[in-house]
């Protein structure tokens, strides 16, 4: 494999400004939905909101809600509607997500479409600086202490927003709407910004202001209960302390963090200061706490996360700090439950860092790259072009052909840059395999660009011409171009899959879009199925979000996977017939066989003699235990010769009875789909048969090499390379590159029976030593001697991997899922295992991996020959990011 390491693609990271978990404790998670309800929303400076799933400790970026120019996300809040009782079952309420930016509105996001819901809550207030949601009804910690629940009290969650002029606004989320309810406080003469706001219980809010004080309000009466001043700012700085953050602990106590770096604790009843500590060298920007309020984390501009603990009814002590970021930490979010306890932090250095709360001393933080998990890169191998996109910009680089003469030359050069009009960020962009056109999508529209070489241009820069489309396409989440460049698959924001046919005029190599969108039907999954498989979540339609889509190498099969783990597939029937009418719509399906096929009752759109239909075996494919993050087809083995295709559809002619004849030639060949799920389970399906392939039956995911299973960063993409007998799959994540030879079988790893499942987890932890930090200070083990005799300590069998977070519940679920896939029964026997052990050194490599690449933005192919696969690995290391100057402590020196 030839790898070009390239770092010249200027992908700018975007700072994390806000983090919010959809729940902070186990009890906030609805009982039924469980951990599937737990999502982390990450708000970035470029306006993107990423939804991460921490399921089983595997951090997966599920979707990105794209923002736009000047739409920085400055705050995030989740609410959940009240649970409803449905046929004796508790259905968890709908989760709703809100964000604020540099504007006076609070935006609600439609989780299913990923688009903001256009409404104006009203209320004539100034810019919103902070946002918080009312604690959930029934949260025992945040019950109103001074009063009993009133009759008819609303049980939903309201929002409180603090504004630049010092007003606090109460917004009601009742009736699935977002409406201005009332002012809690009016602007004061002092013009103090409200910088932070937090609910103490369901009625009392605490807000920190820019004039060295925080105030306590009763939301019911809009009365100020108390104004607490933090005193004068230290000398030599601005006159006022900025109370950047306030946090109410479960017991009602209030913690504040201010611009002097001090963390202060206040009694929740008297509002008197109980403790004041020097927490940071610079401004404290956010505060997090654990479920019972015995640990408080603060983070600030000095790049440190500081831990404060308190024994029961004791005093707070500053325990230690960790430096997990390279720049200001702007946001913290925490979740602590039985099976997962995690503190997430993010800031200007754009990385998302998670660390366990309970094993804080014994585990390393897990730092996740800012780069999107669905690579924002594409390539045109024959033109040696690499495309990458961010915000509103697309850049095209041409990779030079490497020769012995020009080794020292820079490997690539910028040949084109496109800045899209409008404010919307690009959701997806792609380039045709031949490099003659580009398609880019935003939340507003899809644009097509023709590329052509400039005449007499030695640099090889490209001329870009916009292609006018007869029927504009709007609101697309993802684009995917078929390998032959003829079909463009679109995922719309409503999570429908549609297709467009592209035609290339032969004379001028101009691209034309046939103005007819072909909608493809996804199988409707029943609620019962959801219940059985996935528990009911408060996410509703969100779980049906199509996250991955893929064409087969011959462009005749299309698969799409959604977040719930379902896979849909479609096949192309008929042969291309350029003489046929471009668009031929048949209203009624005339084939009697299809009458029971409800999906085909709709009109069938035949384009140039071809039409797409649902793969009849789709419903046989099982629901995966987690969302597929990689869909790819095993390349056809060279031994299978492609069947010669007829020119057009010979037997299909319009007749009187059948004015719109449809060719039903189904694609021939093997369509083996390799699926990698978010849990890094690897499956291979025979799509047309709708079952696991023999290889997949033998090679259970549990037999994957340990080096692979212990990887924490998720896979982002893959490349295939067939060479002789071996079929190599090159997988990569943001920090690793892995090769599997899928023509071979993996050696069987010893599997434990159910009883020793917990032990297996511990073993994994044991092997995975690099992941586990040494505890600082005194080691955990003690030798006890009484009267000269050593007292044996019981072997401690404890410590759930809180960060790895294999919960008992989910564990079983996952295992039962495995059994579902044993469609053909398990083949693996002892003989196979024996065969595996006989591998000799001369056998081709089974797997290989490296971690030398740092922060891979994407890996794209420049063409595959039998002897060599030529790829470009685009790296974007954190040190290449242009970050603003940060706070330097007295003892620090700037690096270079």
């Amino acid at each position, binding site marked *: 494999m030839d790898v070009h390491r390239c770092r010249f693609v200027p992908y700018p990271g975007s700072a994390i400004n806000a983090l919010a978990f959809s729940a902070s404790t186990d009890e906030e998670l609805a009982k039924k939905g469980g951990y599937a309800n737990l999502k982390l929303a990450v708000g970035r400076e470029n306006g993107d909101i990423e939804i991460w799933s921490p399921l089983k400790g595997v951090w997966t970026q599920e979707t990105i809600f794209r923002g736009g120019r000047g739409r920085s996300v400055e705050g995030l809040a989740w609410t959940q509607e009240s649970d409803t009782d449905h046929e004796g079952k508790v259905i968890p309420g709908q989760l709703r997500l809100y964000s604020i930016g540099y504007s006076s509105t609070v935006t609600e996001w439609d989780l299913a479409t990923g688009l903001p819901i256009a409404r104006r809550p009203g209320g004539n207030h100034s810019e919103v600086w902070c946002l918080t949601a009312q604690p959930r009804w029934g949260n025992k910690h945040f019950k109103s202490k001074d009063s009993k629940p009133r009759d008819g009290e609303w049980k939903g969650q309201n929002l409180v927003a603090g504004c630049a002029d010092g007003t606090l606004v109460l917004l009601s989320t009742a009736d699935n709407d977002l409406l201005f309810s009332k002012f809690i406080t009016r602007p004061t003469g002092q013009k103090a910004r409200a910088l932070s706001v937090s609910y103490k219980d369901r009625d009392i809010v605490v807000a920190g202001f820019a004039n060295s004080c925080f105030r306590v309000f009763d939301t019911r009466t809009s009365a100020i209960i108390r104004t607490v001043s933090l005193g004068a700012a230290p000398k030599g700085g601005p006159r006022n302390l900025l109370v950047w953050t306030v946090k109410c602990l479960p017991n009602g106590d209030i913690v504040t963090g201010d611009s002097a770096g001090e963390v202060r604790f206040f009694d929740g009843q008297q509002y008197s200061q109980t403790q004041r500590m020097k927490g940071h060298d610079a401004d404290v920007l956010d505060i997090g706490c654990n479920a019972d309020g015995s640990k408080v984390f603060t983070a600030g501009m000095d790049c440190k996360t500081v831990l404060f603990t308190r024994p029961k009814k004791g005093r707070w002590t500053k*325990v230690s700090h960790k430096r997990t970021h390279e720049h200001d930490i702007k946001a913290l979010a925490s979740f602590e439950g039985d099976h997962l306890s995690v503190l997430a932090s993010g800031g200007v250095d754009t990385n998302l860092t998670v660390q366990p709360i309970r094993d804080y001393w014994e585990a390393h933080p897990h730092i996740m790259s800012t780069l999107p998990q669905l690579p924002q890169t594409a390539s045109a191998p024959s033109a040696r072009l690499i495309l990458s996109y961010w915000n509103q910009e697309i850049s095209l680089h041409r990779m030079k052909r490497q020769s012995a003469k020009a080794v020292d030359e820079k490997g690539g050069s910028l040949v084109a840059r496109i800045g899209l009009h409008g404010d919307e960020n690009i959701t997806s962009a792609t380039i045709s395999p031949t490099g003659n056109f580009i398609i880019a999508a935003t939340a507003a529209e899809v644009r097509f660009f023709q590329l052509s070489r400039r005449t007499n241009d030695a640099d090889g820069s490209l001329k870009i011409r916009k292609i006018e489309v007869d029927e504009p396409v709007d609101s697309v989440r993802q684009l995917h171009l078929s390998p032959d460049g003829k079909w463009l698959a679109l995922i719309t924001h409503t999570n429908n899959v549609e297709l467009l046919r592209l035609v290339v005029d032969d004379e001028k190599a101009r691209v034309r879009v046939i103005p007819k969108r072909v909608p493809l039907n996804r199988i409707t999954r029943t609620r019962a199925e959801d219940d059985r498989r996935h528990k009911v979540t408060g996410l509703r339609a969100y779980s049906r979000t199509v996250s991955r889509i893929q064409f087969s190498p011959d462009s005749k099969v299309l698969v799409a996977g959604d977040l719930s783990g379902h896979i849909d597939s479609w096949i192309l029937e008929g042969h291309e017939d350029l003489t046929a009418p471009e668009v031929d719509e048949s209203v009624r399906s005339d084939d009697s066989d299809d009458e029971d096929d409800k999906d085909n009752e709709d009109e069938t759109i035949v384009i140039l003699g071809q039409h797409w239909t649902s793969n009849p075996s789709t419903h046989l494919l099982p629901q995966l235990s987690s969302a597929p993050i990689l869909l790819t087809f095993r390349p056809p083995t060279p031994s299978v010769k492609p069947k010669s295709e007829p020119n057009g559809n010979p037997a299909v002619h319009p007749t009187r009875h059948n004015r719109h004849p449809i060719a039903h030639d189904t694609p021939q060949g093997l369509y083996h789909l390799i699926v990698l799920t978010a849990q890094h389970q690897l499956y291979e399906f025979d799509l047309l048969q709708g079952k696991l392939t023999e290889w997949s039956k033998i090679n259970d995911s549990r037999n994957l090499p340990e080096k692979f299973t212990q990887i924490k960063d998720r896979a982002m993409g893959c490349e295939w390379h067939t060479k002789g007998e071996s079929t190599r799959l090159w997988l990569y994540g943001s920090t690793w590159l892995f090769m599997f030879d899928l023509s071979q079988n993996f050696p069987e790893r010893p599997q434990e029976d159910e009883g020793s499942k917990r032990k297996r987890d511990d073993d994994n932890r044991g092997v995975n030593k690099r992941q586990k930090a040494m505890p600082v200070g*005194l080691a955990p083990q003690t030798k006890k001697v009484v009267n000269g005799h050593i007292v044996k300590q019981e072997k401690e069998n404890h410590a759930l991997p809180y960060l790895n977070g294999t919960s008992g519940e989910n564990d079983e679920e996952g295992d039962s899922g495995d059994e579902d896939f044993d469609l053909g029964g398990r083949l693996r026997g002892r003989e196979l295992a024996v065969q595996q052990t006989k591998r000799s050194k001369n056998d081709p490599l089974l797997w290989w991996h490296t971690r030398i690449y740092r922060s891979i933005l994407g890996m794209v192919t420049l063409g595959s020959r039998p002897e060599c696969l030529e790829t470009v690995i685009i790296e974007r290391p954190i040190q290449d990011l242009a970050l603003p100057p940060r706070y330097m402590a007295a003892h620090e020196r700037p690096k270079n």
Partner: protein
Amino acid sequence: MRRQEKEAEKAALDATPQVEHPRQITIKKGTHFDSDVDVKDVPEVPSRGSSWNISRPAGGRFLDHDPVFSLGEKYLFLATKRGVHVYSTADSLLVRTLFANPNDTVTSYALSSTNPNHIYVAHSAGDIILWDWTSGGEVLTIPSKWAIRAVTIAKVHRTEYDTIFTIESEKTKNGVRDHIVARHVLWKAAKTTEMSLYRWKRDDPLLFLKVLDGGNVIFAASAKELVVGSDGHHHGDSDDELDPIKFKERYTWREQPSTVDITCLDAEARPRHTDQDVKRSDKLGQMKYNLVYGDAQGSTYIYEDILHKMEQREQNKKLEKSLKPRVDRWHREAVSTVKWSLDSNYVISGGKETVLVLLQLETGKRQNLPHLTSAILSLTVSPKGTSYAVHLADNSVMVLSTSELQPKTNIPGIQSLFTSTTPSLLPQVPTITSLCQVSDDPVDAFGRTPAVNNPHNPNHLLLAVPASQDNSVDINSPAPAPFLQTFDAFTGRHVTRQALSRNLAITANIGPDLTKLKEPNVTHIQISANGQWLSTVEEWTPPAADVDFTVYTKDKVVSEQKRRLETYLKFWRWDQESDQWVLETRVDLPHQSPNNPVANRVFDLVAHPRLTAFATTGQDGVVRLWTPKTRLGDGTVIRGAKGEGAISWRCSHSIELENIPAVGDAGLDFPAVPAPTKAKLAYSNDGSILVATQESSKAYEAGLVHFFDAATGTLKYSEPAMYLGGLIDIGFLGRYFIILSDDLRVWDVVTNKLIYGFKLRIPHKLTPMQKTAMSYLALNVSSNTFAIAVPKTNAGTADMLWGPEDLFSTVTIFNPARPDPIISYDTASPLTALVSLTGTSGFVVLDASAEYRILSPKNSTMSLSSTVNGEPLQIEAVKEEEDIQMEEDDDDAVPGAERGDDEDMVDLMNDEKRVVRPEQLAGIFDNGPSFALPPVHEIFKSVVGLYGKKATA
């Protein structure tokens, strides 16, 4: 003045006896060789009837042991290995020394818990001696089988006597095994009971011991592991505490490995305070035990209520395994000491990077006392908590007030080069500096301390001393010496200290790539005959890592370093008013060879014995004479600050010595110009003749010595083959010219005859560099004697492998006219300086353990002062009534708030010196603009009130 000097010079020249008829210079090879020179071994000295005195050793390094305060804080106990010294904190003066047995060394000491006048001193051979330090009498000797490393005294509950807890090392077949031993000191029975409480089964020695709460809890630690012994029964009611078996069985021991290297440890017991705690106190015990320790990486780990947490963890499996320390990372280098403040609100730590850090636990606020110029070794909080005693690595101890961190007491010892012959037990982190150390040979650690006796004040020794000497840092090169210490050798007292070169006293001592910065090293010190002028030579080489990038191959690094060597010759004037030496002239690279950029070192610096003049020679093969000159500008004298003529020093003559023939092919375009490797100068006693000789690595012409007219710098004649090679030093004593090289030769220059010569038998294994570094020649004109010192190894190990601990020096004193030595004396460790005492007839012998002795003729009136010799001074009987009173209070079972009040009272009564805080003064004066100030008499009243009333410190 000038005329007088000139006349004196003339007179001196006239009186020159020897060079009346300068001989024709005829250099015949091998003129004087072994055939006609009788070079024998040094004859034995008749030990009896020697007419010379050897004083007791004085000086010495303070042990790396926490200083101990007397209960009333009036006295401070510091120990060298020779004994425990009692210093008064009020005037920083030595009051008394409790000397150890001459063959024994002190290892640890602790104040008695029942009698504040008693102190227990443990020795390496095993004895614990109980002294009454107020009277200086030995009270009791408690023998021990094993060597004692640490000693702590506690009064076990319901007993009336001291219990001594010690760490002792048993030598077994498998190596040394440490024990924690307790002894009850039974006064009535006049005996002690000894019991080994715990046997430590590991090889790494136990280093720290802390006994709390009347022996209920014992914390001990090695570098890797913590051992906690606790009373498992929570104060058993039976009265058989004395029973050794029962006492031993009281303890439950827990061994707790540490993930970091422990470098210091402190623990304290606090009564539980809050109501909640008291309610549960039956279960928890009345006291909580807080532990803090520091590690080699610079972090401190604070464990509050550690014993309870350990027990809880054993009982409850579900708890987190980690004991959850509070980690404070601040120190750049190893934390060398850490202590709880008396109220346990602060943790005070001192690091090797010279910063004292006070951490307020409640608020996390940190207060730093930076730039103590030298690594902090240990620290003690005084019994009342009003001051800290800080022991620094420059062999000094400071007492700081707790409130302002102002020094109240300063006790510096002699700060000359110190080389520990025993490796440090403390763990250390390999640093870039220690990894890049120049040499693997531990003998290279021995160096010279440039020293000279001040003729103006013959008691004073001027020593070039390092800023910080930390024997736990394992670097085999002597520490550079940028400071000048003036030390009174007769009273054994530090006089002053000043900087001679650029130093790191107030700047960061660590480079951007975390290398330790090195100061320049003063290599030579000379003082003019009238004691008014001092001349020093200093050298600085950039570290190898900094020149690495300039060279193509690694072997060129050394020459590249040499090329960048910075050498300065400095002339200092004694300033009577400020009591210090003031720099007048600095000469950069005085001996830079014009044709060899690498040759730029200064080899020797000598002072004219009569006049104010100095002479230097160096690697360029040139002798330069330096004389002062009143500075003129446009023909007028430039006046200094006081109206006196400003003086600058200039080179009056430069005389080129013989060229050393080029080695290799002379036909090359750039033939390697050889540079001498060594050169020495000497003035004749009357200052008329200057003798110079140089030596190169090529033995082309051994022993060529040049005689110059010191006034004109003209060569009188050259004499070949006066010595064979391995030049160390030369000197004149009347008509005798003494050359110390591989052998000792004494020539009569008048007759040009060898009087006598001796082979020196320096161990062969030493490299020439080491031989030069450890051999000395000193001349004493008044007694007409000279002394030589050469390194020796223990007899049995002459040719076998030996370590630096087997090295010592032999000092031999001769009369130049007679070949029999007057006295020969073996020092305990190799010498770092041999200084002749001008004006008196004696020598000061300073060795690598920083101890010195004075060798003087018996008829001389001079001897070490009584203090140094340990004659008991009469101090008024120290009956610290209030302290004893306090002690009785302590016996009350309820330690409460009243006790703290009492302490404050005592403090007020005792505190004679008012400490007035600056903010109090500011409160009087900074009350607003000047026109709004109260009348002057009111301000005066408030100030007087502030100083007159009891301070509220």
